[in-house]
């Protein structure tokens, strides 16, 4: 049952982190996190909300890159055909793939813990927003990866999958930013659909059920979408 999904996830995590691609992406992510920290600390305050905020956007890009390997890369190399003939239902396959890309992303996020730790060495930052910030990053990461896995399942091109999922996530993100200049129902819809509207609470140190439900719903939509794409492929 769950063991099959976990076996797929474990293999995918190892595959990402034992490759030059995964290590390069992870190193790039950590380096950017460091740069963002330096920029954020120029305000001379031990607050990290200005660091977490852009980290969500970079996380979306990293999620796109990691989720590409879930289906598109396997399709390109031919290993997907063997995987698809294994006696496991589509839900387990999808769950394994999302957990795999999500797990790899969580490892990348874990490496950035060094940033708040460094701040804690020289100042006394409020731990609340740090904890909620990471909770938000994990929830958002799961949602971003799910969207990436849908796109990855729909193509065998690494480039199309990576740019496609990045485009979808950035469109959702900046749709919310653009909504500020609109009015009426469209503004309400675009604002709600944008992840940018749902990270503010995490940055301020509060956990909102609405925000958690938003990210979990996006993840669930990703699961359903991937299931549909896989069915359509058959």
């Amino acid at each position, binding site marked *: 049952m769950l063991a099959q999904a976990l076996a797929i996830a474990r293999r995918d995590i190892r595959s990402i982190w034992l490759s030059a691609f995964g290590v390069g992406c992870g190193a790039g992510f950590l380096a950017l996190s460091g740069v963002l920290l330096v920029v954020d600390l120029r305000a001379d305050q031990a607050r990290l909300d200005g660091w977490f905020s852009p980290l969500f956007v970079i996380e979306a890009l990293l999620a796109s890159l990691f989720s590409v390997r879930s289906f598109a890369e396997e399709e390109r190399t031919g290993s997907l055909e063997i995987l698809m003939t294994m*006696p*496991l*239902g589509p839900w387990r396959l999808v769950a394994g793939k999302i957990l795999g890309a999500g797990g790899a992303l969580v490892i990348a996020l874990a490496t950035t813990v060094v940033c708040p730790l460094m701040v804690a060495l020289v100042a006394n930052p409020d731990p609340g927003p740090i904890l909620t910030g990471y909770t938000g990053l994990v929830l958002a990461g799961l949602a971003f990866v799910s969207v990436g896995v849908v796109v990855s399942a729909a193509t065998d091109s690494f480039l199309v999958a990576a740019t496609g999922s990045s485009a979808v996530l950035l469109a959702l993100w900046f749709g919310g930013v653009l909504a500020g200049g609109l009015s009426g129902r469209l503004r309400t819809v675009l604002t709600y659909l944008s992840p940018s509207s749902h990270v503010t609470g995490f940055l301020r140190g509060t956990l909102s059920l609405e925000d958690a439900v938003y990210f979990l719903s996006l993840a669930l939509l990703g699961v359903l979408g991937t299931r549909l794409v896989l069915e359509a492929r*058959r």
Partner: protein
Amino acid sequence: MDGGAEVELVGVTRRFGARTAVDEVSLSAYPGEVLGLLGPNGAGKTTTMRMLVGNLRPHSGLIRVGGVDAAVDPVGVRRQIGYLPETSSAYPEMTVRSFLEYCARLRRLPRTTRGAAVSRAMRDAGLQGHGPMRIGALSRGYRQRVGLAQALVHDPAVLVLDEPTAGLDPRQRVEVRDLVARIGRTRTVLLSSHLLSEVTDLCRRVAVLDNGRLVALEEVAVLTARVGSRLELRVSGSAQRAAEVVAGVAGVDAVEVRGQVVVVTGTARLTTAAVAAAVVSAGIGLEEMRTTGGSLEAAYLRLVKH
């Protein structure tokens, strides 16, 4: 439905857009049988195999494996099948053993028997001693063996092999052929190959597909007999006299003289021994005799138009 069949396809059709890749194909395969699947590129062999293993869903028709309907229980069907795809590719960063253990885990083999199952599959596929090697570092032939081992790891009742010897050197081909022959004694094997000699060696029956349609499902012997036999004799004496003598041999339909060569065509009853005996007993020197027809190749070329 055919009671004793392990694999049954009944009126299976699959389209890709406007193109019908597999058109109303019906066939059965039995335990202890290696059924050859022949046809030119694009004939529908791989599509048929992909439908059988559950990678593609037929638009109409019925697929049953071990009595399980693929439309009702696709996972139950996949559990009984081992599949070696045409473009088999295992994960290059994994070692042979860890990949096979991964496959065994996905095949839900119990933890207690998993190690033994992996060792057996490695032995059967000729991978002893290669367990710790990275798949990406193996030659193409050995990677093909890894593909074969993953198809065998759960000891399936049905094995579907799409071009299993493609890209192998002659020695590896013989080894894989022997392995398939051994497996085929107790299990049902569906084998697609462009190598007709391989199919002749391994299969008692063949299904020939052309343009998505099943154009023959026969025993190899019946197919070749239908084509008839063709012999070429090079004689040292009078070719005309040799032709007259050979014309009286049982099973001969026609005789043609081309210089010192006598071309004989006939039915499946025509034997080289009878022809040779007739020529020699007439006091004519027989320098060379060879069979140029009555082969699976001749039957195939007659059946396949595209």
